[in-house]
Every structure is written in structure tokens, then in C-alpha cells.
């Protein structure tokens, strides 16, 4: 469990802003910070990483205090073991791709993790290249892999995918999910892309003007609730098929596969792998007891 209580007066272009947030994160959660620019999302990430000091507050991670303004505790970034993916990637230009990853190794750490990561994000053919010669998507893969080398408990990503085109973005989202699961990370992401948030995160914190406006699951935060829908399930699109004039979308909800009929207009911005909400209003379900 990670507890955050942060308070800081920020000086930005639009004048002073009072950043004041208070939230908890469970281990293994994938959290997204969402909100217009200047809402204070990056500042929150920087305070978690120890790169910015709050005016007052408390950060505790698994009962370890990282920051406590009352007890004057402020762990420096070196001691927090956090993986950070910076908006500008922050790859070291004086090192090759592999050297960038090696640099992140901790004292006495097994080198095996490097090969493992290079394989997961498919950097094998690029490992001896200089970061300066890579495309944006390639740089981002290196940055993400590098952030995980040190086996952090927490991964912070500041709008890592916003500069990439849609196709690469989807691929990178898959890498992220994969890494989040296989390395048992608690991930905090800043994103503006609602479909990305639906795909990746299980908790959204919507910020405005330095405070939390709303938080909850992506559906709770984004879907204008209570469309009188009694049945509502989140799932993943597995297949989209055109049949005559309608479409049949196959959706996986938990471990059940269901088919949903849809119209062309609903299908246009749906893709395989998208997270969707299947809801239904005003119908009469059949209910029966399951005899054991």
C-alpha cells in the first residue's frame, strides 16, 4: 500500500497554484493521472520520485516513509528504487542502447535481466545503436526497458506515448501491460488518451487545478454514469465481423466470451484489443437457480 498526501504551492505560467492531493495506491495497481495540462500531474510524479520536494505532506510506501514533512524525512531519489520514464525519454547519448540498460543495473545485480528486457521489448537488433539514431517509438521502448532494469516496485511514466503514432502506441501499450504484469509493478501513468486509459489502467485519478476532481475505475470516471444501465461489464474486443448490414463483435468479459450486435457507426473506432464497456438498458433477463 502506498499512501500519498502532497501539498505544494506551484509557480507556473498561469500564476500560483495550490497543489493538494491525497490518495492511496494498492500494490500492483495500474493508475492513470488524467487532466488538462497544468493540473499538476507531472509535479505529483516528480514528488513521488523524489525529484521535487513537497511543501508538506507524507509519502509512505509499504510502511516505509519516503517523505514526511513533520519528521523532516526526505529520502533522496537514489534510495527510492523507482523506475521513471521521462517525457523526453532521457536516454544517455554517450551510450549505446545496451549500455543505457546496463547503466541502470544496481550493484551486484544479475545481468540476466538486461537480455530478458531486450527480448521482451524486441530491441535485439538495435542494442549496439546510439539512441540518437533511433525513432521515437524505438527510443520509448529503450526508455521503458531501462526503467525496469533496476527491478523497481513502482514505475512512473510521464506521457510516454503521446508523441507516437497510433499503431506504435498500441504496440507499446501491449509492452507496458506485459511488463506491468510480469514484473509485478505498481504503475503510475500520465495520459490524455481515454482509450489508452481504458486499455491500461484499473484506476483513474482525474485532476484539475492541483486537486483531485474524481477518481475510480475508468468507467466510473469517464462514462457518464447511470445511463439507467442495469447490466454493465468491461471487456476486451476479440473479434469484429460484418454480417450483412450489422456487425457482430466478440467481447471477452472476465473469462466469458460474448457476442454483441453493433451498428456500423459504433464499430468505426473499435479495434481488436480495445477495452470496451458492454451495457444494456431496459430488458428483462431470465434468472434461474444453478443446481449443484
Amino acid at each position, binding site marked *: 500500500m502506498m499512501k500519498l498526501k502532497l501539498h505544494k504551492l506551484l509557480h507556473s505560467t498561469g500564476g500560483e497554484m495550490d497543489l493538494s492531493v491525497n490518495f492511496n495506491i494498492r500494490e500492483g495497481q495500474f493508475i492513470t493521472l488524467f487532466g488538462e495540462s497544468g493540473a499538476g500531474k507531472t509535479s505529483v510524479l516528480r514528488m513521488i520520485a*523524489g*525529484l521535487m520536494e513537497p511543501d508538506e505532506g507524507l509519502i509512505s510506501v509499504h510502511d516505509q516513509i519516503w517523505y514526511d514533512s513533520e519528521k523532516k524525512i526526505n529520502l*533522496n531519489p537514489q534510495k527510492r528504487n523507482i523506475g521513471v520514464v*521521462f517525457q523526453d525519454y*532521457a536516454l544517455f547519448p554517450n551510450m549505446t542502447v545496451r549500455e543505457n540498460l546496463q*547503466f541502470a543495473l544496481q550493484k551486484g545485480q544479475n545481468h540476466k535481466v538486461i537480455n530478458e528486457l531486450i527480448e521482451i521489448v524486441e530491441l535485439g537488433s538495435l542494442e549496439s545503436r546510439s539512441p540518437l539514431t533511433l525513432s521515437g517509438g524505438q527510443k520509448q521502448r529503450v526508455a521503458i526497458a531501462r526503467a525496469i532494469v533496476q527491478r523497481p516496485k513502482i514505475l512512473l511514466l510521464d506521457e510516454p506515448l503521446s508523441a507516437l503514432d497510433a499503431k506504435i502506441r498500441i504496440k507499446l501499450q501491449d509492452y507496458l501491460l506485459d511488463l506491468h504484469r510480469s514484473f509485478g509493478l505498481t504503475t503510475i501513468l500520465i495520459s490524455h488518451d481515454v482509450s489508452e486509459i481504458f486499455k491500461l489502467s484499473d484506476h483513474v485519478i482525474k485532476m484539475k487545478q492541483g486537486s483531485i476532481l474524481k477518481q475510480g475505475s475508468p468507467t466510473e470516471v469517464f462514462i457518464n454514469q447511470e445511463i439507467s444501465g442495469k447490466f454493465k461489464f468491461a471487456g476486451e474486443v476479440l473479434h469484429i465481423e460484418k454480417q450483412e448490414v450489422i456487425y457482430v463483435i466478440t467481447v471477452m468479459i472476465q473469462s466469458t466470451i460474448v457476442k454483441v450486435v453493433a451498428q456500423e457507426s459504433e464499430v468505426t473506432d473499435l479495434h481488436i484489443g480495445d477495452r470496451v464497456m458492454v451495457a444494456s438498458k431496459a430488458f428483462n433477463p431470465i434468472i434461474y437457480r444453478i443446481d449443484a
Partner: protein
Amino acid sequence: MDWGPLILTFQLAAVTTAILLFISVPLAFWLSNTRSKVKPVIETLVSMPLVLPPTVLGFYFLIAFSPANAFGSFLDQYLGLSLVFSFFGLVIASVIYSLPFMVHPIQTGMAGLPKSLTEASYVMGKSKLETLLRVQLPNIKSSILTGVILAFAHTVGEFGVVLMIGGSIPGETKVASIAIYEEVEALNYAAANFYSMVLFIITFIILLLVYMSNGGYLKRFWK
């Protein structure tokens, strides 16, 4: 022809540059990171040799280092150092005189380095020193090279400071620029021309190398 003054000149420049490199890296690092209120004062002091006539610096060094005064006599009595009219005194004076030429390029280089590189390294658990040596310095190589060469060239071209506190002791403080002045005074134009020509050519080559390497010409040449 007496090569002594030329050799002395390049010895002085080499020693000065080496010392400056050690002083300037931490100083530039501090200047580019600090928010301290004394920063403008330190920056001003570092830059003073750019605008002050060298004779002013030389004059104050002469006064300060003089065994007749407190600082000079302290050095003389307790450390056995005499900084006036000695090679060592020239080194100290040159270090201060060429300081801005080394500090400025390195400071500019460090300030131009994206902050996220440093932060990424800190987040990976690397200390400030390790980050400086493995991330920051390797990425401002061309700034360091510029600093080294400008400081070297500037020390070679020094005259006023040397004249004030070094005098003209052969093999000790008689550097090429002083030698030229003396040869001209003695109407010995051939010798003056020799020293001048050597300085001219070497300084030209040094500066040419800086501009070529910063423009990437050398890399193309080597590859």
C-alpha cells in the same frame, strides 16, 4: 635561436590548463546547479579577468604575493613559497587570469544538458559524482575541449600579468611574449619575428582544431 622562452610558455600553459580543468569542472557544476544568492558574485569574480586590464590583476598579485605583506610573508615563512618572480607564481596568476575561459564553456555545456538525463541517473540510484563522471561530463565533451583549448591558448597569449609579477628571469619567468617585447626593445627584430611566428602558427593551429572539432569536421576526417 633560444627555444627556452617558447618551451617555458607551453609548460606554463600546460600546467595552468591542467589545474584549471580540476578547478573548473566542480565550479561550473556548482554554478549551473545552484540557486544560492552568492552565485552572481562568484560569476562576476570568475569573469573579471575578461574585462580587467591584465596589469591590474598583475599589480594586485604583486602586492599580495610580496614578502613585505602579510599573505606573501605567510607563504614565505610557513610554506617556503615565493610567488613573486617565480614560475609557481606565474602558474597561480595564470590560473586566475584564464579561469573564465575554462569555466564559461563548461558551465554553458552543463546548463544546456537536459535536466532529465541527470534525474534519470539519480533515479537509477547513481550518486552525484558517478552521474557527473559517467553522464554529464561525457555528454559535454566538446564544451570541455573548447575550455581546455581556450584556456591553453589564452595562457600562451598572456603578457601583462606575467610582466607585472614574473619579470623576465630566463628559464623561470621569461615566457615567449616577454621575450618578444625584450627583443624588440633591443632592436633585435629577427629574434622577435621568430618567437612571434612560432606563437602565431601554433595558436592558429590550436584554434583551428577547436573550430574543426566542434563543427564535426574532424570526426568526418577520422572516419
